[in-house]
């Protein structure tokens, strides 16, 4: 996983999964949807965009930065460490014998 500014007012993050099995876990809306992201990052779920890209085994998430880049309350100027709350989310064990673990 990685995160980064997408311009000074948005943050974007990607989950690059190793294979289709991993992709199915994180692309499952029952595991990861706009509300889960909103709760982790304390933003409005209506502002969260999720893009599921099976050809790359990637799920991409974008939402407006709650503090603009450079403000006194901005602790991460390039938002490069803001993937961690999502990366620590425990993934469920998949039914079809897929090894679970952290996303």
């Amino acid at each position, binding site marked *: 996983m990685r995160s*980064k*500014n*997408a*311009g*000074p*007012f*948005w943050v*974007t993050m*990607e989950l*690059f999964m190793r294979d289709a099995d991993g992709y199915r876990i994180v692309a499952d809306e029952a595991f990861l949807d706009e509300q889960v992201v909103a709760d*982790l*990052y*304390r*933003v*409005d779920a209506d*502002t969260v*965009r999720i*893009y599921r*890209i099976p*050809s*790359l085994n*990637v799920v*991409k998430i*974008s*939402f*407006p930065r*709650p*503090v*603009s*880049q*450079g*403000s*006194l*309350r*901005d*602790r*991460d100027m390039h938002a490069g*460490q*803001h993937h*961690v*709350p999502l990366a*620590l989310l425990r993934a469920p064990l998949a039914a079809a014998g897929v090894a679970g673990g952290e996303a």
Partner: protein
Amino acid sequence: MKGMPAGPTWHAAKIVECGGQATSNPRAGGVYTIIDADGFTIEPLDPAAACTPISVAAHMLYETADPFEMREPDGTLDVREATYVALDDRTVRVEGSRFHVADQHTIKLEGARITGYETMSFTAIRDPLILEDIDAWADLMCTVVRERVAQTLGLTEDEYAFDLRLYGHNAVLGELEPETGPPREVGVMLLVNAPDQATATAVAKVANPLMLHLPTPSMAYLPSLAFPSSPAEVERGAAYEFVLNHVVDSLTPHGDVPHRDGGDHPCLTQPTTRPPPRWRSSPWRCAPRTPDRSG
């Protein structure tokens, strides 16, 4: 670009920026791209590195909010139908990039402004008795700093602001930090913002004895904390924050901007200027804004 179609040209331009990330070895350098009438071909400059269909396609995600579309002054790049094919073990062929020309030529106008002047102070804590109660210590620090600034400098809370960051505990993520448990060592950064440098430094100096000696609420003695330097205060000068996020209608592809007579702004199609900084608001609690244009 020299008669080549806009779709492959804009798509290739996006990929070559930070192009090393589109290769097997991001540290090896950039990429080499040839654009033609039907698409573009891309390979790393380093003969030992490789571009793969996945590495090139994935680079469309980098630093963009939307992985499929990218707004440019003349229209929108659309890579939904793009295909990525390996020509050999290190060269990729990209075709199918489209460009939808917009009715109105626009330019993005982003801007930062000076929000004040900052002075930073830094100390460090290793004593486990304080570290096991570090959040209460930090709350007490904020309370006492505000009280003493009011008493000694006569400043109200809307005349300055500060951020107290506990590096080693939760400085990076703040309220979003999911881990708990006492840290082994904490670096304490006090960042003060005020309308002028002298005021910012005066506030930091009022906090200086606290950064050296503040106990936790339950301690019956004054600890001495570990300043890494003396004097502890560092003047950072002007502080800047991004505040302007506009799309401006432009008459020509060369950026001539129409102004209304007597008006104080260019014609704005999506005015989204941020309000003045709200110093008292908590991190991650400002209102969400309208979508930015990627790029």
